[in-house]
């Protein structure tokens, strides 16, 4: 079981409170596949529908690390895989 924390706007879209718990292989791709299957409204909101690339202003953090540039098929940290630490989907900081 993997714990996913969505940013506020995506929690509103998906109509969920707090963390989302998903049963998936511990990779970004598998977690996002499962998220989008459960919440179709999130399709296109985290990664591009066609290319499957992460949207430019979305970041993936876990265990105090930025996983945004990791391969979507790379294993997530063991602490995420076991549910000890959450997988964070974050809207990038915007200045101005």
């Amino acid at each position: 079981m993997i714990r996913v924390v969505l940013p506020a706007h995506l929690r509103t879209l998906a109509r969920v409170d707090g963390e989302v718990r998903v049963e998936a292989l511990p990779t970004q791709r598998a977690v996002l596949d499962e998220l989008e299957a459960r919440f179709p409204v999130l399709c296109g909101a985290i990664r591009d529908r066609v290319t499957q690339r992460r949207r430019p202003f979305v970041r993936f953090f876990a265990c105090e690390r930025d996983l945004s540039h990791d391969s979507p098929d790379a294993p997530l940290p063991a602490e995420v895989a076991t549910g000890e630490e959450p997988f964070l989907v974050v809207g990038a900081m915007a200045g101005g």
Partner: protein
Amino acid sequence: MSRIRVLVGTRKGAFVLEADGKREDWRIEGPFFAGWEIYHAKGSPADPQRLYASQSSGWFGQQIQRSDDGGRTWNPMGNAFVYDGVPGTHQWYDGTPHPWEFARVWHLEPSRDDPDSVYAGVEDAALFHSRDGGATWGELAGLRGHGSGASWQPGAGGMCLHTILLDPVDARRIYAAISAAGAFRSDDGGATWKPINRGLRSAQIPDQDAEVGHCVHRIAMHPSRPHTLYMQKHWDVMRSDDAGESWREVSGNLPTDFGFPIEVHAHEPETIYVVPIKSDSEHFPIDGQLRVYRSRTGGDEWEALAEGLPQRDCYVNVLRDASSIDSLDPCGVYFGTTGGQVYVSADAGERWTPIVRDLPAVLSVEVQTLP
């Protein structure tokens, strides 16, 4: 008594403003979709309780929202705007080929007679159609594929299809306008298209009267005269009386002919409204005086309408989709500003009052006249 509902899209959410036919006491609901850009929201002429809204974000992309109860509740619909086939390229700012990439929906145009039929104008410029209430979308690819698409180039605001006009008499005729490509017309329901820009001149392109490349800001039509079109171009206010086959300038005595929106009076097809803006680099009214200009002669002769509008220190803009009219008598005229004000004139432009003053920057205003 009739009621008025005004759908306002802003940089940070949507608002619904409602009043009775006097248009004096307004109830303001919102923000809906707080924090998201609402480029456009519009009701179905066939079912006024059916509303569509384009909700987008630089972070989280595009959503299409639909309400079936006049804006009280909303549900996300389909957001798969996938270009037909291999998308190909258009010109980028530096003149190099750039792949077509979907960015957002600028404009939603519901069908006149089917609540489930709605068109979407998107960036990068293309026209999509849904026949199932926004659940699924298909591109009308003949527009991008008619021949000139590869030469289209974005304006400073992006390469957007921002205007969709559905002919009220000929159901197969559709007009679309793109910045910065120009105006286009289909006579077969969107299958095939042709540019309709003869008569436009634009100093910002190397061939000033080229077939495409013009930065059309907005086109308007009165339903009783679907062959007459009015256009606010980047610079110049234009008119066509032959369904866009040819255009002539009707800027006349306007103090500046730069601007974004253009509207036609609900009951007088020769009465039109524009909001002159100082220039393409100074997007605010001349001398800090916000004025709507009205022509009762279909252009050329214009009068300033200023009563109730700020006449000093006003440096807001009025964007292309941020004006609308109601169909009461006298006709109501509405517009929103980048400063967050939404103004109404309940007497066809003579006197103006703010409905609300401090919304986020207004991107779009659409009015519904309800029974």
